[in-house]
């Protein structure tokens, strides 16, 4: 994994940043070497993206920096905008998180890649030739130059962004969460591409990510960032082995939840789907899916985007009709026509902690909304308080609005809302996917505790294999509308039978187990 030690390319020395007086970064020092990959890891709001923007001179208005960024003989923090124009794209290139919006929708990819070359006065024909070459280099050989971004997939668009960033052979490439928006198999391909580029072109790569698995597999050096400061930095293996800083230990523990011990659940079906098929016109989103969820069980449903898991979720919640097959909840049929009393026995927690609540409603009203199904009981207020206390909040939160809570707290409110009608089944639709790892660990612990205490059955839908392994008793792997494989969690992870499952597992970024064994510090 270790690359050869290289020549120092860029040295960030005690950089501090304040935006409109608010301190964002303090005393950040980093050294980037040619031919090596440096991982910058941190949770959201830790300042890692601002560090990147400082490196390419695109800090927002109102920024004030102290310290220096040395590259060759210049201090980048002292450059005027005109001088930056000669550096951006030429010495330093950058790719961003969201490939879907990072390309101009009304220009062809050929025009966008060649534009950066044309800046240097390269002729049009030559620029297009090099653009072709770069697109070939990033694995887009079969894609013509006259395609528009919307005609490409997310992974392909990210490759175009990479081609565009490396078109002028910069010495430093900054990648800000380059794979966060992508599926795990696409992520693995993009990470491989980045690694090859660094080795072939001898450039330095600053890889910014929240995912420790990604840096473990790719980076030579890692810096851990928290609240605008670097708390620990070392070569990758040493950092993972020693874990000198308590924050690093926290982060690692949260990112690597312990696999769920195997157990057998008494067969007592609460939710069953029998060869369910859902079509939209010519597209079959869900294709003959059968599943059974037992009382007290946590059933994981894993799949990449577009595999049909969202459609299946809506069908299981009785929000959409199915064309074939049937769904039953405690022996009663599920569908758009189901009674309110039946609906009260199943509820759901969604992914987005921001979109899950009407911003104009108080927590009191939000949490009690499901009483629409049962009629408002006399003790509604008391039950709302109980639900909040169950998820670690208090009666004092009833009169607050959603925006007054953090992402993790909002997911707790969403769980309280889901529990208020005392349902038997809880559908968790990517319920922890938007959370930082440490918050995620807390919410997972809460969910586990609630399941045991209240005897709930969970259908846990996610794209994240690590999480599934930590919470699920059984796992269903879904691919293009069908269930590819089904079995006890340990079996699926240790002896995957289906090719697709194997591909998923192989693609998932992991920290080598030997680095984590024992406490070596």
């Amino acid at each position, binding site marked *: 994994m270790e690359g050869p030690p290289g020549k120092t390319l860029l040295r960030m020395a005690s950089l501090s940043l304040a935006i409109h007086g608010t301190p964002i970064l303090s005393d950040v020092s980093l050294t980037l070497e040619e031919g090596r990959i440096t991982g910058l890891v941190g949770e959201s709001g830790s300042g890692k993206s601002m560090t990147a923007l400082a490196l390419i001179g695109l800090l927002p208005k109102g920024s004030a920096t102290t310290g220096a960024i040395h590259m060759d003989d210049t201090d980048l923090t002292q450059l005027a905008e005109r001088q930056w124009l000669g550096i951006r794209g030429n010495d330093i290139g950058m790719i961003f998180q969201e490939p879907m919006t990072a390309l101009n929708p009304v*220009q062809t990819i050929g025009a966008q890649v060649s534009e950066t070359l044309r*800046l240097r006065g390269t002729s049009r024909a030559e620029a297009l030739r090099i653009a072709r070459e770069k697109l070939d280099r990033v694995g887009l050989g079969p894609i013509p130059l006259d395609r528009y971004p919307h005609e490409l997939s997310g992974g392909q668009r990210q490759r175009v962004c990479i081609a565009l960033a490396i078109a002028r052979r910069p010495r430093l490439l900054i990648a800000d969460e380059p794979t966060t928006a992508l599926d795990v198999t696409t992520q693995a391909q993009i990470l491989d591409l980045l690694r090859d580029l660094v080795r072939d072109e001898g450039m330095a790569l600053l890889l910014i990510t929240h995912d420790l698995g990604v840096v473990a597999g790719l980076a030579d050096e890692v810096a851990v960032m928290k609240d605008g400061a670097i708390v620990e930095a070392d070569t990758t293996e040493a950092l993972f082995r020693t874990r000198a800083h308590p924050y690093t230990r926290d982060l690692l523990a949260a990112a690597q939840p312990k696999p769920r011990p195997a157990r057998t659940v008494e067969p007592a079906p609460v939710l069953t789907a029998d060869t369910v098929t859902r079509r939209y016109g010519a597209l079959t989103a869900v294709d003959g899916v059968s599943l059974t969820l037992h009382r007290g069980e946590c059933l994981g449903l894993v799949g990449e985007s577009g595999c049909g898991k969202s459609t299946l979720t809506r069908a299981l919640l009785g929000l959409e009709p199915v064309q074939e097959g049937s769904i039953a909840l405690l022996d009663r049929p599920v569908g758009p026509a189901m009674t309110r009393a039946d609906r009260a026995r199943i509820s759901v927690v969604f992914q987005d902690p921001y979109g899950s609540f009407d911003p104009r409603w108080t927590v009191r009203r939000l949490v009690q909304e499901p009483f629409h199904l049962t009629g408002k009981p006399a003790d509604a207020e008391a039950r709302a308080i109980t639900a909040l206390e169950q998820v670690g909040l208090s009666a004092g939160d009833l009169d607050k609005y959603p925006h007054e809570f953090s992402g993790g707290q909002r997911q707790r409110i969403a769980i309280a809302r889901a529990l208020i009608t005392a349902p038997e089944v809880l559908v968790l639709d990517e319920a922890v996917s938007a959370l930082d790892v440490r918050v995620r660990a807390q919410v997972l612990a809460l969910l586990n505790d609630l399941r045991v205490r209240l005897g709930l059955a969970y259908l846990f839908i996610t794209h994240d294999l690590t999480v599934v392994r930590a919470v699920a008793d059984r796992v269903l792997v879904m691919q293009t509308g069908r269930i590819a494989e089904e079995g006890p969690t340990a079996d699926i992870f240790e002896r995957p039978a289906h090719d697709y499952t194997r591909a998923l597992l192989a693609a998932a970024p992991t920290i080598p187990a030997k680095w984590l064994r024992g406490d070596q510090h």
Partner: protein
Amino acid sequence: MARALLTRLISLALSLVVASVVIFVMLQAVPGDPAAFMLGLNAQPDTIAALRAELGLQGGFVQRYIAWAGGMLTGDFGTSYTYRVPVADLVADRIGVSAPLALYALLLTVLIALPAGLLAATRRGQASDWGVMGATQLGIAVPNFWFAMLLVFLFAVKLRWVSAGGFPGWSDPGAALLALTLPAVALALPQASILARVLRGALIDTLDQDYIRTARAKGLSRRATTIRHALRNAAIPVLTILGLQFSFLLAGAIIIENVFFLPGLGRLIFQGITQRDLIVVQSVTMLLVFAVIAVTFAVELAYTLADPRLRRRAAR
């Protein structure tokens, strides 16, 4: 693409049919018999009947609609009740004033709005932005006919640079253009204010997009990014507004023609109304509606060309 074009054309034709029915029905609701009105109180019943035949007022409701709509298609707009000449001839005379006026105003609108919007968006929060925003805020609030009156007062009454109204005809193009200049300015100012604000808003929205950051990261200057990446993406909302503005310019022209005593379609409609020459009103209104629907159609085509995503959708 061809099929999408056909669908659009069919919907265009449908809009025209519905519009013509609405206009026809509305004008049928006017009480009184135009023939009797024209001939006065002492007219003989058979003279009235003869005139009715001449004016195409015979037959049932549907029959008359078909006769009128069919006539419109072949360029026969009916016969004016007042002047006893084909409406088409009247229109042909007047359109030579109204169409150039609307185009002149449209041109001025774009010429004023484009630099103003660009300036305000790229200097966001600076003095020039505040200046443009303040001026356009005022420009929107000024009724164009009042602005026209002020222009007349200043340039015709006080400075005596131009005559207060009238139209010398196209035999002297210079004089004709001069006569249209004040009306065009009066029409263009409020529309330019709106367009400049829309352009500024659209540009600011696109300048916040991720692909602008990408363009900056590859080394494009702020100005090059704005011109090459933001402007074309901002074109879609701007084109939409421009299409709507054509309709406002037409309507505005009707009123402005009255301020400047220009013999255009607007004057024709008003004469038609005061003289109860309903066939003129009916046909000219239909013509204006046709113009607006056709422009809307052209605008839709234009932004299909501006946005490849729509091209794809249209082709599907």
